[in-house]
């Protein structure tokens, strides 16, 4: 996928994105240059072309964060869509092959059922995500994947150990809401801390598994990596003791999962910003984009029975 001889120009990838968004705005899926057997998902479920938001959409906002991977033929977009007055942040990933859309993955955080107490559809640009990096600030692809995967490993059964590298300025925006360095009352005191400080406390111990991790898009010029994953909350913890000795009640105390697309800005080997869209799905729902690691039923019953 990274063979330079197969590189697709940024302009070409963005042109495909433009045509896709124009078709979506008109709810005309036939205007999309679909590849044969194109794979299309919305909130972790494979759909036929024309289903899902293609039926319900009544408008697209102007907000437009876009990025692409010229060697993988991937283009991504964060935007806001309207469905009969309900406005929802969404993330979109397209894989382009020979000018055709071979994959279209969308995660839409809809206010009534995304499952987070915070959601903001009035998105404004984050300059940090738009900056083109000087060559000296770029990080090679393998290292970018290691850092993003290390972020997920830090989050998984979070015990205070940091397995990635954060820039001190790193902020995370989730479903349109900043969940770091944000003292808004509805986030609680944890929202007022920096990204790394939250993890050093072990706040996210209730995140049991960061499953079905994928890293399909790396924009080397901008230092952006788009990841896909599922987060499982088994509800195992009645309370959590933080690394500073305080005891807190975990956010998730019952089985629950999120399906997500998450964008990492990586500059000079540090995570500088995070932008994510995620949506509640049934606990341990398999990812349609992964193999065995995405499955919800990956343990051997017979083996467990023999214990």
């Amino acid at each position, binding site marked *: 996928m990274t063979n330079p001889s197969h590189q697709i120009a940024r302009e070409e990838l963005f042109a495909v994105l433009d045509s896709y968004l124009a078709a979506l705005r008109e709810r005309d899926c036939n205007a999309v240059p679909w590849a044969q057997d194109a794979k299309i998902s*919305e*909130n*972790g*479920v*494979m*759909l036929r072309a024309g*289903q*899902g*938001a293609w*039926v*319900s959409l009544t408008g697209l906002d102007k907000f437009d964060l876009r990025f692409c991977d010229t060697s993988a033929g991937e283009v991504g977009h964060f935007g806001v869509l309207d*469905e*009969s*007055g*309900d406005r*929802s942040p969404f993330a979109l990933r397209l894989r382009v092959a020979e000018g055709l859309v071979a994959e279209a993955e969308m995660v*839409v955080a*809809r206010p*009534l*059922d995304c*499952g987070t107490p915070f959601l903001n559809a009035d998105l404004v640009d984050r300059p940090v995500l738009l900056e083109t990096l000087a060559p000296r600030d770029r990080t090679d692809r393998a290292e970018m994947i290691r850092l993003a995967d290390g972020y997920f490993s830090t989050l998984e059964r979070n015990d205070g150990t940091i397995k990635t590298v954060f820039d001190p300025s790193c902020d995370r925006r989730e479903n349109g809401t900043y969940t770091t360095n944000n003292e808004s009352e509805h986030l609680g005191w944890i929202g007022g801390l920096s990204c790394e400080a939250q993890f050093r406390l072990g706040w996210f111990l209730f995140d049991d598994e960061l499953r079905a991790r994928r890293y399909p898009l790396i924009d080397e010029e901008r230092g952006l990596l788009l990841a896909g994953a599922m987060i499982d909350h*088994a*509800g*195992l913890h*009645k309370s959590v003791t933080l690394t500073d000795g305080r005891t807190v009640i975990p956010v998730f*105390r*019952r*089985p629950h999962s999120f*399906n997500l697309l998450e964008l990492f800005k990586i500059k000079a080997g540090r995570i500088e910003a995070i932008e994510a869209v995620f*949506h509640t*799905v*049934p*606990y*341990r*729902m*398999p990812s349609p984009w992964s193999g065995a690691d995405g*499955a*919800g*039923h*990956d*343990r051997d*019953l*017979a083996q*467990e*029975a023999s*214990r």
Partner: protein
Amino acid sequence: MTRLNSEWNSVRGGKRLDHAQLLALADGYLAALLAGKPYDLAWDRRALFTENGVPLALGDGAWATVDSLEPYYLRFADAEMQSVGFFRVVRERGNPALYSARLTLEDGLIAEAETIVARRRGEEPFPNPDPLLLRPEPVFDEVLDAADRRPRLRLIAIADAYFSTLELNDGQLFIEFDPRCNRRENGNQTTNNPALSQFGAEIGMPCVEAFRLGVFRFDDELRDRRYHLVDEQRGLVFASAFIDHSARVDRYHLTDGTERRSMFKTPNSLCMLELFKIVGGRIRQIEAAFVEVPYRTRSPWSGR
């Protein structure tokens, strides 16, 4: 769509449980659930266990979180199909949820366990916020007079026709309702209940009236319908299905000309277990548990 497995049961000639034993199995299942010990039960080695439409390992999901069983308990069984079903209010970490399950046995071992755990989210009225007040409808346990009974296949056809009436609901009825029919969904009575009508005018209507008006126009497809438990003596059918809401409809007109707005502005689906009481060929009572899932989530039970 319809599965009748009486044939293989009789051919296999393995261990079979009678009606009372199946009901007792429901008790045993709940005791094991509370203890978090699934292997206190006897499972077929190829057993499929699902919670809210997702296959899980035994011990995962609500097996790890249920910390009390509350009084609300409705159970029913079918010795011919070797199935038992139930609804039970439980608490997980203190939070109430409605737990519904269908267990189907092969040679006396649990081969299929399909569960729905309806957990309350936010300020939604579902499940019922006062689960301790819930009481089973005694009508489900009533044994019918011979004249009011219908054969197994006919009972399944009536339940299936209910789903067909709901699908693309435009006022055409494929079934008859008993005038006393009520429907309870996730613990809330959603017919003849003016107290909850702020959540939809149809909740205050009799069961049949909402269907005649075409209130449920926004229900697109009732898919992956399955019927694994029938009790001819009591007129019960326990069904599984998904309802898809494509959100293609925003404003629409009832059959009386009134304009309504759909309660579903965005695509989603419901995964459910639904119990029908059918008396004299008419639907007398309905009890359902469902959870919202991403639009057109696949059923793990289809093709099995």
